[in-house]
């Protein structure tokens, strides 16, 4: 394995979500100003190949530098303790209500106890269900045990860093974006309540085991049938799960001496188990499953401007590779030849590689010319024109080219051969669109070592130059 300067190691698949969290946290931190990241960028670039992987690697490396990973590890250690604490809190609130009923004497108002024990857990469960159904989790997102946990973790005593708060917000934002906030916080909530309800049941069990209670009901306006029906109805589900159902006689007159209060106590515990604990365990497991799945699929939103900008920077780091190096002879030797002697008093005009619509011949030109010819540039045409030129040996040779075309080595070869047949050679550029075209040819002539050729971009001036050759 390659060892990197900052000690980057590939992210194990199970730790991907942690990398996403660190990267998101770094993103939030960088919104207040970029961090120095030259070496980190380079390392991330070389360590990973995929777009998202590189972003995660960068986030992880920067996160480590800011010791965010240490914060995260601390959170993981502390989380269970905080959940226990929260469970205790839930237990106190749920059992506190029940204790008001149970602890007040040896007579327990069973129906009031039923409501006291189950009201709060059911209410919070309904709030969670609403959050799931509405998919928004607006209120639940802030008032749940999950959020309290996050809030407490970010403010844990010990070496507190301001980034921990940013990380808590990043986690919140990330879960919200993935629409798993309610599920994730649900895991904490349900775990907390499960623990709390187990404690409540144990406390009830303990109280009923070692103390003699009389479970009764009281009423001012209802009749006895209501309570019979109520207990039978609520007791049916626990009964299916194996809890004993109180006899109708017991229910009708619970205060009658000699009544068996055992089944009535079991009914209360059965109800807490069935309506309190069981749903919590079920939705808890469900939340956990949904959350795990969401975490496995957790990814960066690479359409964020922040990430797109980083990706552009990574792209720029991609190297290209020169596979066939330039081996140009620095300056091909073109021995300066003797200036050829003219064999004719008249000049010659040759158009080279002109577009078909170009006006030909250019005017005005001197009246007497030994050769006026244009060629498109096939090998045969070139040969023929060069043969004619060598036969005529004009006193001056004007080559006409299309200014907008790009000069190339084919042009150079033709020019070089043509100059051998006349003492004076000039290039005339026609139909230039702007000064750039002319400038390009001029620079190219200098580069190619063709500076012995005169240069014109104006027909009358070129014609004057040809005339000047006489005498």
């Amino acid at each position: 394995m390659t060892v990197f300067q900052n000690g980057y190691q590939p992210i194990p698949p199970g730790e991907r979500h942690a990398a996403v969290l660190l990267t998101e946290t770094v993103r939030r931190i960088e919104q207040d100003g970029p961090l120095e990241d030259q070496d980190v960028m380079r390392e991330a670039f070389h360590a990973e190949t995929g777009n998202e992987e590189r972003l995660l690697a960068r986030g992880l490396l920067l996160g480590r530098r800011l010791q965010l990973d240490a914060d995260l590890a601390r959170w993981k250690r502390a989380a269970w303790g905080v959940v226990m604490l929260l469970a205790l809190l839930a237990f106190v609130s749920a059992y506190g209500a029940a204790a008001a009923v149970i602890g007040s004497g040896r007579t327990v108002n069973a129906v009031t106890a039923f409501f006291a024990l189950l009201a709060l857990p059911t209410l919070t469960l309904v709030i969670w269900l609403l959050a799931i159904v509405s998919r928004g989790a607006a209120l639940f997102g802030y008032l749940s045990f999950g959020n309290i946990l996050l809030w407490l973790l970010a403010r844990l005593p010990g070496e507190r860093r301001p980034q921990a708060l940013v990380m808590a917000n990043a986690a919140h934002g990330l879960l919200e974006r993935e629409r798993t906030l309610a599920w994730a916080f649900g895991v904490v909530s349900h775990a907390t309540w499960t623990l709390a309800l187990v404690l409540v049941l144990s406390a009830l069990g303990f109280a009923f085991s070692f103390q003699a209670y009389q479970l009764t009901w009281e009423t001012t306006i209802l009749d006895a049938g209501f309570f019979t029906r109520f207990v039978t109805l609520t007791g049916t589900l626990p009964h299916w799960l194996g809890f004993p159902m109180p006899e109708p006689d017991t229910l009708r007159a619970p205060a009658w001496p000699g009544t068996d209060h055992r089944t009535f106590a079991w009914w209360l515990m059965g109800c807490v188990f069935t309506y309190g604990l069981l749903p919590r365990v079920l939705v808890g497991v469900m939340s956990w499953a949904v959350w795990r799945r969401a975490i496995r699929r957790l990814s960066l939103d690479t359409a964020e401007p922040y990430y797109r900008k980083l990706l552009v920077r990574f792209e720029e780091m991609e190297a290209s590779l020169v596979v066939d190096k330039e081996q140009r002879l620095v300056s091909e030797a073109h021995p300066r030849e003797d200036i050829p002697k003219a064999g004719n008093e008249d000049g010659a005009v040759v158009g080279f590689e002109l577009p078909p619509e170009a006006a030909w011949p250019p005017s005005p030109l001197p009246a007497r010319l030994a050769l006026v010819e244009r060629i498109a540039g096939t090998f045969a045409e070139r040969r023929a024109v060069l043969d004619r030129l060598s036969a005529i040996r004009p006193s001056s040779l004007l080559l006409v080219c299309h200014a907008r075309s790009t000069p190339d080595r084919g042009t150079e070869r033709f020019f070089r051969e043509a100059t051998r047949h006349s003492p004076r050679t000039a290039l005339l550029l026609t139909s230039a669109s702007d000064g750039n075209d002319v400038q390009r040819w001029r620079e190219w002539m200098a580069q190619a070592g063709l500076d012995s050729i005169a240069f014109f971009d104006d027909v009358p001036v070129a014609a004057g130059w040809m005339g000047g050759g006489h005498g």
Partner: protein
Amino acid sequence: MAEPIQVAVVGHTNAGKTSLLRTLTRRIAFGEVSTMPGTTRHVEAVDLKVNGESAVRFFDTPGLEDAVSLLDLMKMLDNCPTPPDRVRAFLRGPEARGAFEQEAKVLRKMLEVDAGMYVIDTREAVLPKFRAEIEILTWCARPVMPVLNFVRDGRSRKDEWLSTLAAYNMHACVQFDAVAPFVGSEQLLYHDMATLMRERRADLSRVVEHLEFQRRERLAAARTIVADLLVSLAAIRHPMTPEDFADAQKREKFIGDLRALVLRASRTAVEELLAVYGFRSDDADAAMLPWLDGRWEDDLFDPETLRDASRKLGTGAAVGAAIGAAADIALAGLSLGTATAVGAAIGGLASQGWGQFGRRLANKVRGVQELTLENEVLYVLAAHMVDLMAALELRGHAAQGKVQAGTASGTAELKPLMATLQASRAHPDWSLLQHRGARHDQRRRRLVEAIGEALRPIVDARLR
């Protein structure tokens, strides 16, 4: 993905090979581009990566410059039963290291690759030298995809070229403008290459998918930047005490500061857009980009432009006139925030929270005036940003010219966006210029998303 598809990019000197590759690989710094012939003199490989793996390996080659003489030379070679043998015989010969060294590099590569792209400057007439190039390329016996460059230029001779290419049995070809590529022509290029290389079709369609995904994400990022800016600016609400308001000098300074703030935020957004599209702000210097030279910025507070925007928005009245106190101070683009904000606040009070109500009431009691940006300014800014997005989306990375600042032409289509934007008016704390933390406000984020969605059809219409 298996071995990357190898593609040699060949063509006459200065036809735009390196420019094409810059566009195809989105690497602004690749190679060297100039109008001088023979700028690229070596063979350089550059990869197009899909999910971190090389999918296509392009080879940028030197230009073919002397094909006429080379063709003649190669025709004279003896003992070559097939055309590729003729090419190989030339490569073994002395001229391959001499006068035709540049051409030899191209042909050597052509014999190795899976396919070639023949880049043509369609402004040039179909001269014998180009026919010689095509003939030599066909001798390499590799599928060749002609790429017609500069087809949008007025001097383009596209049809002549098409008939010439057809004469050499090259019927599939791509029209491309390296300086201003058509949206989607890149995808077309790979699609047509797939018809030449049927065995690599699956790989090429993966490339097309990848490119489309990247394009969509880039566009989404651009929309977010613009939406974020608009929300921030619409939210601006500068309180001003009655004493300051009465003092003309202080008022001037106050307004000047606010304008400077708006300009700074807009400039940052422009820079971010350029960065998302891979333009570094030092590349895009003032001389090259009208978006950075401030021409569009003058527009923002120009009374004439604002009046025009007011007409397009259908607000009817001249700027400022409808807002009472603002009329006599002629702020051009800034107004006292009562008129616009109250409507928005009442409309969305339930969803926007009651906190606004108390703040406004308190200001009223103390006589504090609040300055906001008028809708016309936001409208002009939005139109400019849409122009810039469209220009960036359409622009190739090899462009040496300017991004054309179009006329801020958005008319009716920007109206619904402006209506959605009003929700931000009631939230001075949503302006990132003054409250950095607001970025993570859930309701603000939802508004940014909504504005981004409203931008989508407008920008898409410009790209069609």
